[in-house]
C-alpha cells in the first residue's frame, strides 16, 4: 500500500512571539484528492500550508510528504513534490519576463535547456498565458499574474499543489477561469481559501480550522449543512449553497 500524499501527525506550532497557530493537527491527503482548508482569519490556514514545504517546522508532531518526513535533509525532494502558489503573486514573480520566471524553477532543477523550454511552453499553455511570455510580470493584471504564478509552479511538475487564497483579488471572469483550471488538474490539491463557492466547485473534502485546531473534516455537503459549526468558525454557507433546498432532515 502506497504512502499518503500528505500526512500530518499531531502537528503543533507556536510562533516566536508565543502565539500558538497550530494545535495537535492531524490529517492525511490521498493522492489526487482536492481538499479545502477553511476557517476565519487567524485560524492557522497559512501556517499550516507553510509546514508542507518545510518553511515552518513543527515543535511537536511530524509532516510527511509522499512518505518522506519533511526535514532539512529532505527539503529538495519535498519542495519538488509540493508546488506552492503564494497568496500574493507579486511575492512569487521574480524574473524580468514571464518566460524567464516560469523557467526559474526548472532551471534550478538543473534540467537541460530543451526540456526547460518544453516545460515553460506546456505550463504557459495550460494556464492560457502563452501570449504573455515576453511581458514583464509587473505589468500584468491580477488574473494574469495569478495564472503566471501557477504556471511557474506547474513547470516544476509537482505532484501536490498547495494554493493560498488563489481567488483573492480576482474579478469574476478571472476567478471562473481559475476554477475551471483547478478542476482540470489531477494533482493532489490543498487549497486554503475564504472563497467557499470555489470550494464547492473544486474540492471534494473540507478541513475546517478554528484557533489552530481541526474543528471538522468532511465532505462539503456535511460541513456546509452544519450551520452551528460554520458560525462557531466565523464562516457562513456559500452563496451557491444557500439557494439549495435544505436536506430532508432539516425540513419542517
Amino acid at each position, binding site marked *: 500500500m502506497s504512502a499518503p500524499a500528505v500526512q500530518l501527525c499531531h502537528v503543533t506550532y507556536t510562533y516566536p512571539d508565543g502565539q500558538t497557530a497550530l494545535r495537535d493537527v492531524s490529517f492525511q491527503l490521498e493522492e489526487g484528492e482536492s481538499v479545502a482548508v477553511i476557517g476565519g482569519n487567524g485560524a492557522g490556514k497559512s501556517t499550516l500550508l507553510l509546514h508542507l514545504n518545510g518553511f515552518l517546522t513543527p515543535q511537536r508532531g511530524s509532516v510527511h510528504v509522499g512518505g518522506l518526513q519533511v526535514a532539512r535533509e529532505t527539503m529538495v525532494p519535498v519542495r519538488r513534490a509540493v508546488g*506552492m502558489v503564494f497568496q500574493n503573486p507579486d*511575492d512569487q514573480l*521574480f524574473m*524580468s519576463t514571464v518566460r*524567464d520566471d516560469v523557467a*526559474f524553477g526548472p*532551471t534550478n*532543477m*538543473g534540467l537541460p535547456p530543451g526540456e526547460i523550454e518544453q516545460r515553460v511552453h506546456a505550463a504557459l499553455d495550460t494556464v492560457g498565458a502563452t501570449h504573455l511570455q515576453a511581458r514583464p510580470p509587473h505589468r500584468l493584471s491580477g488574473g494574469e499574474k495569478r495564472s503566471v504564478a501557477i504556471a511557474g509552479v506547474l513547470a516544476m511538475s509537482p505532484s501536490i499543489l498547495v494554493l493560498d487564497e488563489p481567488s483573492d483579488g480576482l474579478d469574476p471572469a478571472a476567478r471562473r477561469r481559475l476554477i475551471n483550471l483547478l478542476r482540470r488538474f489531477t494533482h493532489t490539491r490543498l487549497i486554503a481559501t475564504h472563497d467557499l463557492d470555489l470550494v464547492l466547485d473544486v474540492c471534494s473534502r473540507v478541513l475546517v480550522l478554528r484557533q489552530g485546531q481541526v474543528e471538522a473534516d468532511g465532505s462539503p455537503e456535511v460541513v456546509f449543512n452544519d450551520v452551528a459549526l460554520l458560525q462557531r468558525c466565523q464562516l457562513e454557507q456559500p452563496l451557491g449553497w444557500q439557494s439549495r433546498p435544505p436536506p430532508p432532515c432539516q425540513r419542517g
Partner: protein
Amino acid sequence: MPGGRCGLPVAPPSVHAVSGMGDSLHALHSLDAMASRPSALTPFDPRARILATLTFIVAVVSFERYAVLALLPFAAFPLALCAAGGISLRSVARQVLVASPFAIMVGIFNPLLDTAPLLNLLGVPVSGGWVSFGSILLRFALTVSAVLGLVASTGLPTICAGLEQLGVPRVFTLQILLMQRYAVVLAGEASRMRMAHELRAGVTTLRLATYASLLGHLLLRSLDRAQRVHQAMQARGFDGQLQRLRCAAWQGRDSVLLAACIFGCGLARSINLPRELGHWLLGLFA
C-alpha cells in the same frame, strides 16, 4: 474643483511625489524590459557589449578635468547603443536626469573653489571651476547613458551572465540581481506607504516624526515582504545561486564590435576631433 458633501470644495489628494516615485520605478522597469525585445544588438555576446561599454567609460573618465569639447564625440556611443538597441532616448534621458543630483553634488563646489578665468566664451570670461563642473556633468551624462543603454539593450540577468563568464565571482552577480529585485520591492512598499500617508494627511510633505515612523514601518514591512519573496524562490528550488538562463558563445562579430569600439574610443581619446574639425574649417574659409 468638485464640491464636497457639505458643499465645501474638496481638494484632490496630492499624489505628485507618489506618482514621481512610481514613474521612476516604471521607467527603470521598462528599461530592463526593453532588453527582451529583439534588436540589432541581440546577436552579440553580452561580454562584447560589456567590454565595449567598459572601454568607453575608461576612455571618457581618463580625460583631464577641464576637457569638455574633446568629450563631445563620445556622445556617439550612447546614441549608437540606443539606436541599435531600439531604446527610447527619452527613457534614458529621464533616468539620467533622475540620477543627476548626485553629479551636481560632486561638482557644485568647483566654481567656488576654482575661480581663475580659464577661457573666454564670446567675450565672457569663464572660470576653471565652471568648466570642470561642466566636464563632470558631461562625463556623468555620457557614462550613465551608456550604462543605461547597456542595461536596456542587454538586460541585467544577461549582463550578470556575461560578467560571470568574464570571471566576476557569482556572489557579486547574484547580489546585483537580488539588489535590483529587492529595490523594486522596497520602492513598491515605499510608494504605497507614501500614498496612504498623503490620502489621510492631505499634504505631500512629511513631518520629521511621521517620517521616522514611516521609515521604521518601511523597514519592517520590507523585511516581511523580502522573506515572502525568498520563500517563494526557495519553493521553486532556489539554493542561493541563480542558474544561468542563456549561454552565449563568442563569435567573430563580437570581436569586430569590440575592436571597432576600442578603435573609435582610442581615436577620440588621442585626437581632439572637434578642435581639429574647427581648425580644418577655419583653414578652409581663411
